[in-house]
């Protein structure tokens, strides 16, 4: 088991260990994810944060085997309920995707098929995994639409995605994703395109629906506020590496990695006076030009000679951190 320092009773639902993801072909192949290891326990809600280009979405896609087969390569283990997903055939994976593990995306309009009705897209999922007839599939689909708070579900069943608002489309996506009660739902920025009042509705809905079915949630987002309100544990990803794994309250109070601290401090606050916002200088290093030592060192105010060496993920009092200086630094968190 690779879950590291985080101790939970029983076996993990998802156990990712030594995951490397490469994109591209032949000479143009680049490594996007390096040696990623983490675990998620049944029913747990885990956040994954980091800036654009750090590999969050690629991680999500690799878990559900939705990366293009001819232009990606994966090594390591992705174990779901004890079964290594990286060793499954396309066919075997199709039986698991949607049924045991599902994923929803930021832009529901591009994930929904515009030429099929909402109802058809749910019954398709249900009938792919359960031996039910058309009538029962339809009943289940309408129930699923009602459960996600879509008004007049029987009418919406026959409507097309473009007839729904952004918030309603995301509800429909959730209905499809949860129609077969998967054990793990990966939600990739599901509320980023939504207004803040609709965002609260969708977050409440996601939490309630996953709690009801005991589904674990991996919530991928760039918004630490959203994570604080939804997740019990957070994985911070930087330049393709896991750099911190901690309980949410511990992380907010005392981040151990300078990058996590920088992220927390650069968020403008409702109550903040008009002052300079602490920002993180520079940018995420490009895929082709990742430093051999600490990948964050070039942007880090605490970089020291020892940071030129490759950094290992260390266990620290129930958390994990990839920074050789974490013991000597006292970094500010969300509460100054």
């Amino acid at each position: 088991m690779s879950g590291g320092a985080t101790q939970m009773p029983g076996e993990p639902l998802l156990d990712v260990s030594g995951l490397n993801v490469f994109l591209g072909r032949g000479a143009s192949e680049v490594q996007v994810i390096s040696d990623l290891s983490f675990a998620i326990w049944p029913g747990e809600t885990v956040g994954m944060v980091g800036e654009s280009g750090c590999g969050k979405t690629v991680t999500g896609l690799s878990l559900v085997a939705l990366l293009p087969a001819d232009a990606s390569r994966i090594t390591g283990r992705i174990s779901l309920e004890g079964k290594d997903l990286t060793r499954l055939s396309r066919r075997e994976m199709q039986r698991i995707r949607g049924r045991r593990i599902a994923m929803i995306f930021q832009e529901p309009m591009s994930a929904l098929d515009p030429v099929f009705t909402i109802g058809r897209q749910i019954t398709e999922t249900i009938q792919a995994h359960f031996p039910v007839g058309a009538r029962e599939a339809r009943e289940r689909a309408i129930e699923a639409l009602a459960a996600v708070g879509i008004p007049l579900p029987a009418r919406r069943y026959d409507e097309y995605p473009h007839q729904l608002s952004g918030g309603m489309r995301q509800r429909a996506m959730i209905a499809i994703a949860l129609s077969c009660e998967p054990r793990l739902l990966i939600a990739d920025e599901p509320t980023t395109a939504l207004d803040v009042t609709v965002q609260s509705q969708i977050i409440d809905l996601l939490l309630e629906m996953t709690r009801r079915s005991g589904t674990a949630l991996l919530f991928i987002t760039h918004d630490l506020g959203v994570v604080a309100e939804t997740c019990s544990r957070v994985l911070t990803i930087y330049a393709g590496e896991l750099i911190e794994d901690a309980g949410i309250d511990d992380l907010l109070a005392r981040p151990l990695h300078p990058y996590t601290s920088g992220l927390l401090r650069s968020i403008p606050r409702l109550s903040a006076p008009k002052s300079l916002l602490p920002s993180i200088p520079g940018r995420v290093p490009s895929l082709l030009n990742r430093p051999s030592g600490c990948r964050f060192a070039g942007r880090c105010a605490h970089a020291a000679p020892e940071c030129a060496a490759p950094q290992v993920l260390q266990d620290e009092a129930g958390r994990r951190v990839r920074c050789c200086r974490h013991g000597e630094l006292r970094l500010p968190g969300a509460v100054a």
Partner: protein
Amino acid sequence: MSDAPARDAPLIAVEDLRVYFPSGNKRETVKAVDGVSFTVAAGETFGVIGESGSGKSTLGRALVGLVRPTGGRVLHDGEDPFALGARDFARHRRDFLIVFQDPSAALDPRMTIGHSIREPLDVADETPRSERDARVLHLLDRVGLDAEFARRYPHELSGGQKQRVNIARALALDPRLIVCDEIVAALDVSIQADLLNLLAELQRELGLTYVVITHDLGVVAHIADRIAVMYLGKLVELGPASRLMEAPLHPYTRALLSSEPVPLPSVLRTGTKIVLQGEIPSPIDPPSGCRFRTRCWLAAGRCAEVEPEWRELEPNRFVACHFAKAAEDPESAR
């Protein structure tokens, strides 16, 4: 109406502004902005918050003369730009500019960055070429980009860098007002922080006036002196940023503030969330009376019949709600 009586003549005065668009089948009308009044003082940062469909972007375009008002008017320094002749209008609008959310859309992919920044100077055609090139380098420096960026193309730049170029381009003709329409929305938080710091620095040095349009409460709270809250084509609340954030008067403002996710440990999070039901109604057929009533937990019979008056409840604090006092009382806020 003036909401900043202590100040001199405002740089921008918006008087009962209305902007209507014909809808798809031409028989219906979208009332994107429907009777909005406020003023912006020189040197001020004026924030406008609202959800998609509130009309805030249309308001931003109307402020700089990109759309003609259907009713009411926008005065720039006391002058109505639409009353000017074509030549005066072209000259005039250089002082009142807008920068948009998508940093790529505003830059021509085939033009170097230097050329893009120089373009407004070329159009103005008032200075010799050598002076314009020197000005481009000065502007790049001003927004924190190296001189070598002048030779690059947009695709070689990150989103944050492109947005800096757009700001440099806006600064080229020494504007007085810049409307920032969601200019940090597409950026990561650390890049966003850099850009907000840059805006503040430019304002200090150049005495710029900003209207910042955003859906992000943290951004507007951080940068604005005063904040206007917009809902379905109308302002529902306007006041000094700190007061509005501490003690919002309108139930919609309360709901917005309460639904903003805050990165605080559970023990430090206060209060129960107000989760609004439903979504913003269609601006083609807005609800009668108070437009927010269909999602408001305080709504009563009167709200459907009588449109709440825009009134100054406290000095410099305006609100349009029959129950604005009640909403301030924590007991009644659920």
